[in-house]
C-alpha cells in the first residue's frame, strides 16, 4: 500500500464527485502516473486471483485439477462439473431457500425499522427516551452470543427447519433504526406541514413525504440487509438441520463433504454460489458505494 506513487496533478484535481473518468482530454503520462496505474492494476489483478482460480479449476476435467504444478488453462476445458453440480439439484434448492428467507428478512426489516425510526423521530410519547435508549443499547449486544437461547425459543415455537425460523431473529436490527432516525431527523418539517394541511395522516406523511426523500438511505439499508441476510451463516446453520431447508451458504458448507475430492465440482459450486450476489452488486454498484458513504460517514 505504501507503493502508490505520485499522481499526475491533473487527475488529482479531476471532478471528484463523478466516479467515471473525466471527459477524454489529451494528457501526457508522467513516470509517476505510469507507476501508479501499474501498481493499481496489479493490485486489482491480485484481488481477482482467488475468483479466477476457482473458475479455472471448475472448468478443468476432474483428472486435471490435482496435476502439479498447477496450470491456469486446460486444453480440455469443460463445463461438466457445473452440469454435475446443477444436476444434483440441491444448489438450486438452496438458492431458492436463500432467496425466500432473504426477501422476508429484507422486507420485514425495512418495514419495522422505518416505522420505528419515524415514530422516534416525529412523535412524542411517554417513555420515548427510555425506549430509544433501549433500542440503541441493543446495538451493543452481539447476536452471536444469543444462539443457544434463540435456538431453544425456536424449538418451543416449532420454527426449527422453517423459513420463518431462519428469517425472524435476523429482522431485529437496532442499528438501522438509529441510522434511519438520524436521516429522518435531518428532513425539515416544513415539507410535512403542507401535506398535513391537506389532511394527510401520519402514515400518509410517511409514505408520500418522508420515504421519497429518503430513497438513498432506504436503498442502502435494503441492500445491506439483503447482503447480510443472504450471507448469514451462523444462525441458519444452527436453526436448520434438514438439507432441503438449508440456505446457500449453509448448504455449500456441506459441499466439501459431499463432493469429497472432486475439486472441479467443489469450485463449480463455489462459483455458482458467488454468482447471485455478484450480479446484485454489479446492478447496484453505485447505490452500494454511496450507501456505505451515507450510512458510515454522514449517518
Amino acid at each position, binding site marked *: *500500500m505504501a507503493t502508490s506513487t*505520485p499522481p499526475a*496533478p491533473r487527475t488529482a*484535481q479531476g471532478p*471528484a464527485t463523478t466516479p467515471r*473518468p473525466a471527459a477524454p482530454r489529451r494528457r501526457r503520462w508522467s513516470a*509517476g502516473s505510469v507507476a501508479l*496505474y501499474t501498481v*493499481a*492494476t496489479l493490485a486489482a489483478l491480485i484481488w481477482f*486471483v*482467488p*475468483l479466477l482460480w476457482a473458475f479455472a479449476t471448475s472448468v478443468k476435467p476432474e483428472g486435471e485439477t*490435482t496435476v*502439479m*504444478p*498447477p496450470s491456469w488453462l486446460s486444453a480440455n476445458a469443460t463445463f461438466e462439473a457445473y452440469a454435475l453440480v446443477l444436476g444434483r439439484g440441491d444448489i438450486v434448492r438452496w438458492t431458492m431457500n436463500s432467496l425466500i428467507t432473504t426477501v422476508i428478512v429484507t422486507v420485514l426489516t425495512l418495514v419495522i425499522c422505518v*416505522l*420505528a425510526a419515524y*415514530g*422516534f423521530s416525529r*412523535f*412524542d410519547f*411517554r417513555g*420515548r427516551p*427510555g*425506549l430509544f435508549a*433501549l433500542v440503541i443499547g441493543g446495538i*451493543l*449486544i*452481539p447476536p*452471536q*452470543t*444469543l444462539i*443457544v*437461547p434463540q435456538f431453544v425459543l425456536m424449538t418451543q415455537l416449532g420454527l426449527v427447519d422453517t423459513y420463518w425460523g431462519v428469517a*425472524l*431473529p435476523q429482522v*431485529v436490527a*437496532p442499528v438501522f*433504526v438509529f441510522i434511519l432516525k438520524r436521516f429522518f431527523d435531518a428532513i425539515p418539517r416544513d415539507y410535512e*406541514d403542507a401535506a398535513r394541511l391537506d389532511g394527510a395522516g401520519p402514515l400518509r406523511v410517511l409514505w408520500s413525504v418522508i420515504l421519497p426523500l429518503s430513497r438513498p438511505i432506504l436503498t442502502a439499508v435494503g441492500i445491506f440487509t439483503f447482503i447480510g441476510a443472504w450471507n448469514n451463516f451462523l444462525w441458519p446453520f444452527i436453526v436448520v438441520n434438514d438439507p432441503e431447508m438449508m440456505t*446457500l*451458504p449453509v448448504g*455449500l458448507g456441506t*459441499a466439501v463433504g459431499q463432493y469429497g475430492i472432486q*475439486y472441479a465440482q467443489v*469450485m463449480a459450486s*463455489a462459483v455458482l454460489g458467488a454468482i447471485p*450476489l*455478484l450480479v446484485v*452488486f*454489479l446492478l447496484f*454498484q453505485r447505490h452500494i*458505494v*454511496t450507501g*456505505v*458513504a451515507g450510512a*458510515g*460517514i454522514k449517518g
Partner: protein
Amino acid sequence: MTQNTHAPAPRTAPGPAAAPRGLVDVRRRPSSWTGLWFVLPFLAFYALFLLWPAVVGFGYTFTDRSLAGGDVSFVGLDNWTESLTDSAMYDSLWNTLWFTVLSVPVMVLLALGLALLTDHARRLGWFLRLSFFAPFVLPVTVMTLIWGWMYNPSLGLFNGTLGRFGIEGPEWLFSEDTAMFSVVVATAWWQVGFNYLLYLAAMQSIPKDVYEAAAIDGAGAWQRIGRITLPMLTRTTALIAVLQLIGSLRVFEQIYLMTSGGPNFATRTVIQYIYDSGFVGLRIGLASSMAYVFMVLIIAASIAQFRLFSRKEG
C-alpha cells in the same frame, strides 16, 4: 415497556424533547399514542428475539439444562465457576484476541492503501472498486471453499506455485504456526472492501480547493497525502478501527469453516467454543454462561472504544 402506554401525554403538551421545534409543529402534534404504534412492531420483534433470549439465557446459566432434554435442576454458580476457570475458555479468548490483534491493523491499513490507490488512479475507478469490493458480497462458504483449495498443502495454488521455484510451502491451515495468519489473510481479502469504501467516500468528500491551494504552494503528491489526506481522515480511521475491532472480536464463521478450530484448537474462537458446548456438548447452561462472559467483554470493549472515539471528536 407497555406500562408507558397507559398515561399518554395531553395532545398539546410539547414534551421536553419537542422544545426546539417550530411552532407549526407543536400545534399539530399528533396524539402520544400514534408514535407508540409506529415503534411497536419493532419493539415486539426486539423483545421476542433479542431481549427475551438474553434474559432467558441468563436464567439458563444457573441450571444444568441440556439440549437433549431431561430434568433441569438449579446448580447455582457452577456454570460460571466452570467457564471462568476453564483453561480452554481462556485459550479460545486468546485466539479471538489474537485474530483481532492481527486483523485490525491489516484491515485498516490495507483499506487505506487501496483507497489511496483508487483515489489517485481515477481512470480505473470503476474497475478498482469492482475488484476490491466484490469479495465482500461473497457468502462466507464460497470464500472458505476457494481459499481452502488455494491453501491445500499438496495440491493448492500457493504451494504449487512455490513448488515451481523449488520452494516447499508451509502447511497453511494445517499447522499451528501458520493457521491463524492464513485465516487473517483470507479474511482481509474477503472483508477489506467495506472499510475501503468508507475510506474512499471520506477521501472524495475532502474539498478539492484544499488540494488546489496546496498544489499552488508547490506541495507534491506525497506531501498532499501526508499533510492533507491523512490528517483529514483521522475521524474516519477512528470510526473504521472501532467497527473493525468489534467485528473482529465476533469472528467465528470463516475460521470454523476453514480450520474447524484446529489444528489442536489453535484457532478455536470463543463463539465456536460456545457453539461446541451448547450444540455438540448439549450443555445449554454452560454455553450460556460462556456467552455471557463473552458478551460482557465485547460490550465493555465497545463502550471503551466509543468513549475514546467521542473524546477524540470533542
